């Protein structure tokens, strides 16, 4: 049986060998140069950007090496690129979500909104960033759950980076009784902040009247703390407020409803009670 001749039968052995050599040497240089690019980026940017740039550089270099090797073999690269274009169009339609995630990942990379080890809040999720990849970001939540968030979700939504800045404000909403002396309440709260080792002196703590509530005068007590002390400060301030208010007789009232009972003549009917309309209406 005679096998049909293929293009490979017409390739001289020498060109085959040189093509393999191009492939091997090219791969070697692609790996080395990608590592150099990563090292250069680490020195200037951060590990995350460096890793992604290394990958991008490595894959681009490998594509170039493969094209040169194929060209050496005598394969028509132009035809191949045309076919690859049509193929990539098909793949593009089929993998829109993946591509969207990759492009979103590149935008996130450029924005540098967060980095590995930061604590971020995305929608209802809060957690530590474990990895930032081309398609998704991996988070570990406070209750130790591993969550994968697609880059597209991150780019579309709101991200709060909880660890970007070293200090943050803690707000406590406090309602005191209507007969309280607001000046005295303010002094107590500011003293509490001054005595706490967790509260920063600058920016200074503030007490601001916020509204006349249904049962209380509502105040907003704000102090600045180091971000690591958030939970500690919330607990310390809450217990401090209760302790100091109790000591100084400042009431923290429960929600209350005041009902006025009006003594009425039992012989009067419901329609005679104040506030009820009796007799014919104005239009009659």
């Amino acid at each position: 049986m005679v096998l049909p001749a293929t293009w490979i039968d017409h390739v001289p052995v020498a060109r085959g060998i040189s093509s393999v050599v191009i492939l091997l040497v090219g791969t070697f240089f692609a790996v080395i140069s990608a590592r150099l690019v990563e090292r250069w980026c680490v020195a200037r940017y951060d590990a995350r950007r460096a890793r992604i740039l290394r990958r991008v550089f490595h894959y681009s270099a490998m594509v170039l090496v493969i094209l040169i090797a194929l060209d050496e073999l005598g394969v028509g690269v132009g035809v191949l690129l045309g076919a690859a274009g049509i193929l990539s169009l098909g793949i593009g339609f089929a993998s829109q979500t993946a591509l969207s995630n990759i492009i979103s990942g590149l935008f996130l990379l450029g924005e540098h909104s967060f980095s590995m080890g930061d604590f971020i809040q995305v929608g209802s999720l809060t957690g530590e960033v474990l990895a930032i990849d081309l398609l998704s970001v991996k988070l570990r939540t406070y209750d130790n759950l591993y969550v994968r968030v697609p880059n597209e979700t991150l780019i579309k939504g709101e991200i709060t980076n909880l660890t970007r800045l070293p200090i943050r404000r803690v707000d406590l909403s406090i309602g005191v009784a209507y007969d309280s002396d607001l000046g005295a309440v303010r002094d107590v709260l500011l003293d509490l902040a001054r005595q706490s080792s967790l509260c920063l002196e600058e920016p200074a703590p503030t007490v601001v009247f916020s509204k006349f509530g249904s049962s209380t005068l509502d105040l907003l007590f704000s102090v600045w703390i180091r971000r690591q002390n958030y939970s500690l400060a919330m607990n310390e301030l809450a217990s401090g407020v209760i302790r100091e208010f109790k000591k100084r007789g400042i009431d923290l009232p429960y929600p209350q409803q005041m009902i006025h009972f009006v003594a009425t003549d039992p012989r009067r009917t419901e329609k005679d009670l104040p506030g009820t309309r009796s007799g014919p209406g104005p239009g009659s």
Partner: protein
Amino acid sequence: MSDWWENPYGVALGDALTLEVGELDFVAERLPSEWNFFWNYRMGGVTQPRVGRKTAGSADWAHWSRCRYPFRDPPGSLVFAPQLADRPLVTKPVMPLLVPPAESLTLWISSPLWCRLEVRTEDRSIPLDLDLPVLRFSETWFGPDTLNGDLAYASTTRARMNPYLTRDEWIDFRIQTPVIIHNEEAQVIRIERLNLPLPTCGLYLAEEGLITDTLVWHRTGHGQKASVERIPPVRGRLVASPRQVDNGSILTRAFTRLFD
């Protein structure tokens, strides 16, 4: 007792060395295979340094903050190596200070001593990572806004012009930083806050007591940037090297944010 921080204290096995200084109460217990350290900050009032000895294992300090360092053979003596604060100190003059034009002045700003524990054998000294201030500090933010700036310790100062402290001014655990300000501008400078970059200063024992490098600040005006220098004292023995190496940027940042 100005050398309380320099002398090594021998502690026998099963004994405890106690130190009261400033607001700090400190106990070091030497046990057969470890050193145990306990510390607590007293409320209200400061004390001059007082070293004492007790038996290890007392319940008096059982509830304090504590840590232990195991050793195959615990070294026999302990040193309270003096240190400057581990962060910058932002201090506000009690009265606003206004420096007239063409005037130079030297302010002496105090900061409390920190003690870094070291245990010693006959031939070597082993620094431990226990580093305690003798007074508690509150913290503050120093910067133009809440995005840019640094965390620092906060204090108030009388900004004295005289370096010599009296006995009741806690000379035994206070460190003084001389700040020289040259106002070569045609207008008054108002000093509302001073940021001392203490971690980048050396600590010296001099005639005036414990002092740091001198910080010299020239303000020349005419749109020129202020120049800042750090100069070691002419006479004085270095007792602690700076905690951080500064290439000049920390010092410049500290002072350029000083004045509006």
